[in-house]
């Protein structure tokens, strides 16, 4: 029965995605509907995850679909931290369609139903949880960087609607995306460390190599930013590229291995 909670979550996220699209047409009118869609959807998904945790013997999100389910919850949860403030509403336009699509994929892959819990090791569960949280943070950083690039383009092109449809200020987006990426990298580092401690040497596969490559890319990017060698637009491009790698390469290598 608890798996039925996926539907209110999907409807909430889907409604939010449509409401944010409406916000583009007429600022102010549908943003509140969008936020409520996110909140209700997230609460429903939280209920779903709790039910899955109770039903399972071990870690219930060890499959790719289960991991996707948890990943979506983490992404939307992180979005809710800023998404409720008026300036960051449009971040929902990037995040919510993505979250709704991934949750639908998780449902189609059986990740929202009852699971026997195929991961019995606590360390392994911690590793998966931390990695997913880290990637969720990087997804959000990618969304913020996408907003940065959009705002930068509007200002460069002297878009006449730049004050009518207001995005967060450029400097704030730059700072926030860098901070989100840094926190996510710390979480990811911990996840990798836990993984290294719990895996056998022979378990190293292509997905792990990709995860470490992504980690390296973000680490180098943040280091260069700290030294002032890349900033603003270039750093935003790097975050978006990193997000593309997370979204495309990671699932591909997961299935390949």
């Amino acid at each position, binding site marked *: 029965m608890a798996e039925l909670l996926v539907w209110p979550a999907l409807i909430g996220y889907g409604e939010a995605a449509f409401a944010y699209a409406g916000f583009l047409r007429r*600022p*102010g009118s549908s943003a509140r509907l969008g936020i409520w869609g996110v909140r209700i959807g997230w609460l429903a998904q939280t209920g779903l995850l709790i039910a899955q945790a109770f039903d399972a013997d071990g870690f219930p999100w060890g499959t790719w679909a289960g991991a996707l389910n948890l990943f979506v919850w983490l992404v939307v949860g992180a979005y809710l931290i800023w998404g409720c403030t008026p300036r960051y509403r449009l971040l929902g336009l990037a995040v919510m369609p993505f979250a709704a699509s991934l949750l639908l994929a998780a449902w189609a892959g059986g990740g929202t139903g009852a699971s026997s819990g195929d991961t019995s090791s606590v360390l392994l569960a911690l590793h998966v949880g931390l990695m997913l949280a880290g990637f969720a943070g990087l997804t959000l950083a990618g969304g913020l960087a996408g907003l940065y690039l959009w*705002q930068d383009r509007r*200002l*460069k092109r*002297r878009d*006449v*609607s*730049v*004050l*009518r449809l*207001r*995005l*967060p*200020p*450029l*400097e*704030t987006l730059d700072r926030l995306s860098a901070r989100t990426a840094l926190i996510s990298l710390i979480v990811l580092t911990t996840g990798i460390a836990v993984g290294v401690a719990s895996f056998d040497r022979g378990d190293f596969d292509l997905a792990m190599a990709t995860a470490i490559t992504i980690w390296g890319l973000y680490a180098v990017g943040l280091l260069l930013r700290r030294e*002032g060698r*890349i*900033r*603003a*637009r*270039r750093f935003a491009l790097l975050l978006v590229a990193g997000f593309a790698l997370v979204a495309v390469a990671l699932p591909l290598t997961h299935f390949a291995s």
Partner: protein
Amino acid sequence: MRLALVGVSHRQAPVELRERVAVGPAEAAALAGSLADGCEAVVLSTCNRTELYLATVDVSEPLEERATESLLALAPDDAAALAPLLYRLGDDSAALHLFRVAAGLDSLVPGEGEILGQVRDAFDGGSTGPLLDRLFRQALHAGRRARVETAIGENPSSVPAAAAALAQQVFGDLAGHTVLLIGAGKMSELTARNLRSRGGTIGAVANRTVEHGAELAAQVEARAVSLDEVPALLATSDVVITSTSAPGFVVDLATADAALRSRRGRPILFVDLAVPRDVDPALSTIDGCFVYDIDDLQAVVETSLAGRRAEAVHAEQLVAVEAERFREWQASLAVVPAIAALRARAEEIRAGELAKSEGRLGRLSESERKLVESVTSQIVAKLLHLPTVRMKEAAAGTDGVIYADVVRNLFGLGEEEQSSRDR
């Protein structure tokens, strides 16, 4: 109760006439006080309008004439020219007008923010009673709702405000950000004031004649420098406002390139208010460098104003709802005396019957006596609840007076006073 409004505004009268009847807050309060003999009065005077609101319970009181005389008396020499330009509104129309004014719908720039404060000041300085108190409170509520529930007041309506808002779109909070003014024109000054009001710091005023720039620099607490220092200042400035009358570019790509590259991608905003332009548009090819000229800003303001006008449609609906609520409240006043008399009569009967039974009730304890009081009061209140609600509903339509007369007749309300007066 009657409400009357007599006024003159930018819609009918030119500024030469409006300024003749404009009064300051103290004068407005004094005028309201002098008009409040036997009625309520509020005087609202802004740069776009002077309006007198009067209200009274006495239907025979010539409110409009009094208000007209008082308004024309403010400019006796121009009374003949002013008289045909005055508008006179009563009751519902007057209320709707005030609600529109408070919401900024009657302003030159829809949704401008100052008017709400001016309405509040007029209310504070007025001589109000039940009607004008309710009217102005609800007008302020309508004005606030219009600004909160629609985007009518959100976007800038002038070039200096647009320039400052653009700077906030780049930097967010302007505190800690430095502004460089190149040229000391009026538009530069207005933009500088706007940026300062949002937390920006004016670092320097660069001008061809340093002495001329020093005047503005003193006003905005900046230092005056010559145009030669501009390239060096670009590296440390976040917003650059230019408005010189120079025939060519004051900031060209070659001059600015080195300075801007040393900012290592930190954004910089150029607002070029000059014609011919002071800033080479090619600067916008540099990463993090944004250039807006006067045409760009005008286009941004036009779009903002178009947005405000679109939002005004929603604000009009909201104001109409508030005006309707006020009309219902005002109409309910017609049945209030009948309701009060009915309740008084019922209470009199209840108290009288309890007094008659005093002999039998004397045996009751204090708590039992309180219980009897409470029960009988509740019965009276419940019996009268529905008639009260129905009378108020009828009053919101057009039948309030008929209902009030029927109730007076059925319950013989006021007959005893009438017969005692006859005796």
